[in-house]
């Protein structure tokens, strides 16, 4: 079988179980020590690793863009079984909107070179826009097959089944291509001891915008086309009612809904 190179794009995000916040600069607080590999990217890694394992000569490169701590995300990818890791880190990237992030990722994928398949998660659990996969595909001039609940690669063809709000679709394209996978696609593996030990010997390549030939003015806050102008924790709900059923809770619920004009 021909050599296949797969790049998995991952993101280091604040743990969704932690108290997430926007800072005084209205950017996501990313240095609270509660960062983790975006859970949905584990599905992307699992998909890539399964495809690679079914082949004789396939390699998986795990790629991230983010501040110093973000290296943890690619290290987790190496522990799960990825062969190589790339971390793009540059102060000028801070404040990027999704388009800026896509530009940096696209340049990094091109830097890796000869990529047959780009795999991403369905969304980052910090911003949850789901915009990145198609934006990245467009920048890389690749066909996009987003939101795979099922994914097969057969020879040079990739096929995806996806569940949308009102329909189910099957999409197909020739490699090279980009897919995003959902949390329905697979059950991600846990890094085992062997994987964790092997990852210690694997190199993480660190790159800057200059290494990638990306003009710093097109990314980061400078290149962003959107700007968060206000951010505040949502005030707690007021006038809450909590009761234990004593036989009439259903009646009281009905009365509450009527009183609140919700029926």
């Amino acid at each position: 079988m021909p050599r296949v190179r797969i790049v998995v794009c991952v993101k280091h995000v604040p743990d969704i179980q932690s108290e997430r916040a926007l800072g005084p600069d209205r950017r996501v607080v990313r240095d609270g020590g509660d960062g983790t590999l975006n859970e949905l990217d584990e599905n992307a890694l699992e998909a890539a690793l399964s495809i690679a394992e079914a082949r004789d000569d396939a390699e998986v490169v795990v790629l991230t863009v983010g501040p110093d701590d973000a290296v943890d995300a690619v290290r987790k990818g190496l522990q799960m079984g990825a062969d190589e890791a790339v971390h793009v880190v540059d102060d000028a990237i801070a404040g990027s909107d999704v388009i800026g992030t896509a530009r940096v990722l696209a340049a990094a994928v091109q830097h890796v070179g000869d990529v047959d398949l780009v795999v991403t998660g369905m969304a980052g659990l910090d911003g949850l826009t789901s915009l990145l996969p198609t934006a990245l595909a467009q920048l890389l001039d690749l066909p996009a097959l987003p939101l795979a609940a099922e994914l097969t690669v057969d020879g040079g063809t990739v096929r995806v089944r996806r569940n949308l709000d009102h329909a189910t679709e099957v999409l197909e394209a020739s490699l090279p291509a980009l897919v995003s996978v959902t949390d329905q696609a697979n059950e991600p593996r846990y890094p085992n001891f062997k994987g964790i030990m092997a990852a210690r010997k694997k190199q993480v390549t660190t790159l800057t915008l200059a290494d990638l030939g990306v003009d710093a003015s097109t990314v980061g806050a400078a290149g962003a086309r959107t700007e968060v102008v206000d951010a505040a924790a949502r005030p707690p709900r007021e006038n809450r009612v909590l009761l234990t059923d004593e036989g009439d809770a259903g009646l009281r619920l009905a009365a509450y809904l009527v009183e609140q004009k919700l029926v």
Partner: protein
Amino acid sequence: MTTTAPVLVLLDHTPDGALRGPVREVVTLARELAGNAGVLGVWAADAELGADVLADLGALGVTRVHRLVADADTHLSAVLAEALEQALAAAGAGLLLTVSSFENKEAAARVALATGAGVVTDADGLEVVDGRYVASKTVFAGTWNTRCAVTAPVAVVTVKANAVQASPAAAPVATEVVDLAVTVSAVARRVTLVERVERPASGRPDLGSAHVVVAGGRGTEGDFSPVEDLADALGAAVGATRVATDEGWIGHDAQIGQTGVTISPRLYVGAGVSGAVHHRGGMQASGTIVAVNSDPDAPIFEIADFGVVGDLFTVLPQAAAELRRLKG
């Protein structure tokens, strides 16, 4: 404050040509922003644009519809995006609004890249401030409110269902239909749509855009009948937690959560729902939250406006019967 360029709205429709519910809300929002500049629609011609829909659009204040006659399937995001770019140019619009859905976000990302527009997803409000579009949206599973300004000359904003209430214009207008022949690039044709199967209508409101949702979780132990009964008494959509869909108690399309359907109805009722963060991420922006759970420590009680510690199998039927009695 209103804008000076027309606002273009993607008119999502069913295969038989009926407008999807939230489109009327988005058109209403567009009309408020556009003032005299006008609201224009864009309609993919995979379904016929019927006289009743045109009358509805006229009542909502849509002055013109660009009917996309494309030489490829507009269900493909790359094809839809190229068509929307041409419609934006033809309309001279400075803002493209769509209903928030995964498909529309795919196209929105592409349109933004191709046109240099700034893009905001899942907005629950939009206004013009000092000549810029400023969208409001909740983030971090509905725990933070943000406002996000578009700094580029063109904006693409996807709007959440239930963000605004649909209402007719002060006076209906006659809606002109203009065909727009779209020739898409070879690049946009590289993905083949092998199959597209529309989900049959359930007879209940659509989960993503329903005004009222009743959701069942682990506590139903697989018996959704009390959930469905209360949903019918409320005219609500039925949703579920990840556990319930993974167990096969209900279809995956009913999963509410940050990776499933994100909802913000006026009223959410969670029955036997613990309120794990994955689920909260899909419903915490709801107007009023009701929770019924036998576990007093369930995290959902932390965010409930009305919480009942009790057995859903007695509380829900009692509430449903009482609501039916009150309705007469």
